[in-house]
């Protein structure tokens, strides 16, 4: 086996040094009858070529998102990832490193984490960010738990604009810690007003969670909501699914948000059928000690040279055990490196321009689709994703579009299986990767499907 270096002679010599007669003897603590004497019922080893062939056969049964005009979003977005990103993250010194617990030989990882934290804080308009979470949805849940710790309250109000997966994960995380999750499902035709959310805030409310842009694509100002929350002693949590957006729209920090978190996949990371992704998590200086997850900080070494270490780890499970701020250990290290490299390539000009191009393409698509009989664009505002209402159920239309070679969007019925009133709504994401021909293909296919 190509990964196993021990030879027969090595094994014999080692057993002799140990003083054991066989490898089985080393397993003598295993209870009687539990030690298998033959391989389990699975295929035998394969050479590299055969494995590759097997896996390529599985890949061939899928339709790659970039192989056809594709308009799927709803929390994961197809963007162009520069070749440099993948080259850097495949360098063995990054790929095969462990969590940087020995900082003298992990300055590479630590320095990029410090840069990552700075980038995340900058785009969200916040003071500080952590070294990543698992994804946007788990970040949302952790933000709610953090708000509860910080305010010593036990209720979270989730706006209807929050992605259903984020809501479900938050409910899952809260269900066994006596934390109430309030707030109704959203409506693509009507935004929740500040008054409506205000009515749900009581003296037990730790936070209000809004998504920006929201799950239907709308861009809403939350400055007033932040004031309302703070007046009642609650925190404002702003979640997001599209990290490119902040190159064009106001940062959540500018609203007065206390915690800003969400999905970082859009920058540097492939779609990967839903994972691994990278949760971004930012907050104010005041709340930093309530944060979940790893933090990288600046310090100096014995010779006075600047260096970086993991810090404030007394918040974490390996020190605090059952009193930790979260049970998170492994995070999304390499995905955060991909984010950092892509963001470094973009820089101020590239990031702003990328966001603008996304928006311009989305505007173009919205206008093209609005002109299709049977399609109405619902949104007044959007970044790169918007909701359309069709004259037929969207799930069936999407299937028809597949037969025409177009991945035409996410039917809201997939996100809200119990909301029959949303059956005719379709969520459409448009990025810099979509060409004019793609948009025309979608419009044409929709025209035929709805005729």
């Amino acid at each position, binding site marked *: *086996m190509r*990964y*196993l270096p021990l030879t027969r002679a090595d*094994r014999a010599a080692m*057993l002799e040094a*140990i003083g054991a007669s066989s*490898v089985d003897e080393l*397993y003598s*603590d*295993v*209870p009687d009858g539990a030690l298998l004497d033959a391989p389990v019922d699975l*295929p035998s080893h394969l050479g*590299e070529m055969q494995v590759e062939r097997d*896996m390529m056969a*599985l*890949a061939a*049964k899928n*339709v790659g*998102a970039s*192989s056809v005009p594709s308009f*799927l979003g709803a929390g*994961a977005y197809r963007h162009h990832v*520069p070749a*440099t990103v993948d080259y*850097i*993250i*495949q360098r063995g*010194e990054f790929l*095969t490193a*462990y969590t940087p617990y020995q900082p003298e030989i*992990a300055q590479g990882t630590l320095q990029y984490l410090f*840069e990552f934290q700075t980038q995340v804080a*900058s785009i969200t*308009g916040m003071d500080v960010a952590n070294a990543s979470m*698992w994804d946007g949805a788990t970040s949302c849940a952790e933000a709610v738990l953090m708000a509860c710790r910080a305010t010593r309250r036990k209720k979270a109000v989730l706006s209807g604009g929050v992605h259903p*997966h984020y809501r479900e*994960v938050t409910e*899952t995380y809260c269900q066994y810690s006596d934390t109430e999750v309030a707030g109704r499902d959203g409506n693509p035709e009507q935004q929740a007003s500040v008054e409506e959310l205000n009515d749900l805030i009581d003296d037990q409310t730790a936070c209000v969670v809004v998504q920006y842009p929201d799950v239907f694509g709308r861009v809403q100002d939350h400055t007033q909501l932040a004031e309302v929350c703070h007046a009642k002693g609650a925190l404002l949590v702003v979640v997001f699914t599209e990290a490119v957006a902040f190159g*064009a*729209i106001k940062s959540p920090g500018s609203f007065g948000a206390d915690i800003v978190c969400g999905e970082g996949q859009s920058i540097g990371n492939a*779609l990967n*059928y*839903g*994972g691994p992704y990278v949760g971004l998590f930012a907050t104010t200086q005041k709340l930093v000690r309530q944060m979940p997850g790893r933090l990288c*900080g600046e*310090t100096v*070494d014995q010779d006075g040279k600047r260096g970086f*270490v993991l*810090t404030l780890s*007394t918040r974490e499970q*390996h020190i605090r055990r059952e009193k930790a701020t979260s*049970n998170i*250990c*492994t995070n999304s290290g390499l995905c955060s490196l991909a984010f950092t490299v892509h963001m470094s390539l973009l*820089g101020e000009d*590239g990031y702003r321009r990328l966001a603008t191009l996304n928006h311009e393409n989305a*505007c173009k698509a919205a206008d093209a689709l609005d002109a299709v009989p049977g399609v109405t664009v619902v949104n007044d*505002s959007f970044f790169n994703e918007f909701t359309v209402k069709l004259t037929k159920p969207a799930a069936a239309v999407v299937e028809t579009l597949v037969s025409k070679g177009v*991945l035409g969007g996410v039917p809201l019925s*997939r996100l809200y299986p119990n909301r029959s009133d949303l059956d005719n709504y379709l969520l459409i994401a448009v990025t810099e990767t979509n060409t004019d021909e793609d948009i025309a293909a979608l419009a044409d296919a929709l025209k035929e499907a709805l005729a």
Partner: protein
Amino acid sequence: MTFTTHTGNRGLVLEEKLIFEQGQPGRTGVDLPEPKGTKTRFGGLDRDEDVGLPGLSEPQVVRHFTRMSQKNFGIDSGFFPLGSCTMKHNPRLNEKVARLPGLSDLHPMQPESTVQGALELIDQCAHWLLVLTGMPAVSMSPAAGAQGELCGMMAIRAALDARGENRRRVLVPESAHGTNPATAAACGFTVDSIPATEDGRVDLAAFEAKLGDDVAGIMLTNPNTCGLFERDVRKIADLVHEAGGYFYCDGANFNAIVGRVRPADLGIDAMHINLHKTFSTPHGGGGPGSGPVVFSDALAPYAPIPYVVCNDNGFHLVETADEKDGNKPFGRLKGFHGQMGMFIRALTYMKSHGADGLRQASGDAVLNANYLLARLKDKLSVAFPGYCMHEALFDDSFLKDTGVSTLDFAKAIIDEGFHPMTMYFPLVVHGALLIEPTETETKESIDQFCDALLSLVAKAESGEAEFFKNAPYLTPRRRLDETAAARKPVLRWKPETA
């Protein structure tokens, strides 16, 4: 000869400023088309403040990250015997396969008809895990080991709720990973610690005495964090079941027994598997991981959404708790469907090894650890007697009276060109040194490591404590001031104010 250079660089070890200290306005590392100036539809929320990102060209960015990478130690660099982390070789074939466009370029919300290969891949990966553990069900959702624990413990909570029982106490051995008590607490359980015996296992009598009708279950790592197989594991399973509780097994150390012992035969109810340890998906400097959880029949109905099923129409992804299939999922753990990129790598690894190779791998892992133990046992102090599993545990009594601490000793190992072992864990041993060589290491490299360790022991015994206290000497940075970092945290770069 030591001397200072003008640049601060030392040959191949190059000083590298932060990316924020290198930018120039007007530079960029991407070529994007000129926007057309379309009127925006942001409802007046156009960003007018600067983001504050530096501008660099592509070659600058490549050089920046390349230089940084050269300050990192990875498995590819050298021997990395970090106990309980299973730093085995990460095959490049896994990386190549994970980047096939038909696998990496799939949107999680694509219609099922366009992702049948992806669902089949998840199903195949699940099948391998089920056969290797002997268990009837698996949830592929969890993002990492800690979330796997959450998955298992939430299933236990849901099963207890379904039984109408209010059991809230979870028994956790003192030697457990910190994630275990943190997870139990996150599920609303209280943690009751079980002491260890003189030989590093669960104290069966103490465990039995703690059982009662308020016990939800036990979280037990097996092989345990001392690198030992829990001899009484079946007895523990029987006792906890008789008391009406469940057996959660932390599978972090599954690498020692893959293809040789099926956890199902030990009586477990749930166990997470770290694909980034046992099945070679890269640690990536701290993630991403993946922590699928296998379940017994008693807990299987409570597994979270989503999950893959196969029916007459092919593979189907169940994404709602309302599917009329008799299951009662406790909820959803993360966005979308789990760490697909890790399933691809783990399946590639499992197919490469096959049933025969996986069995060989666990055997070699245990052989390597016992060989290392045999080579070091006379000079280092072995924590517990007998054979070990995939890792060997020592305490710091061999350093007694030398003035050298476990930390000092580990830092000196860095100068010898190795990554240190895990230090000060598990907590049941004073000044613990936990060494896990893994099966992908040669006898020669283990010998070299042992020789180096023995030379350091001799050095410590000869009264050179000062040498150890200041180690390492040859690294890009010397010991870092962690106290200062925590006292006044600087967590981001800020422009210097004039």
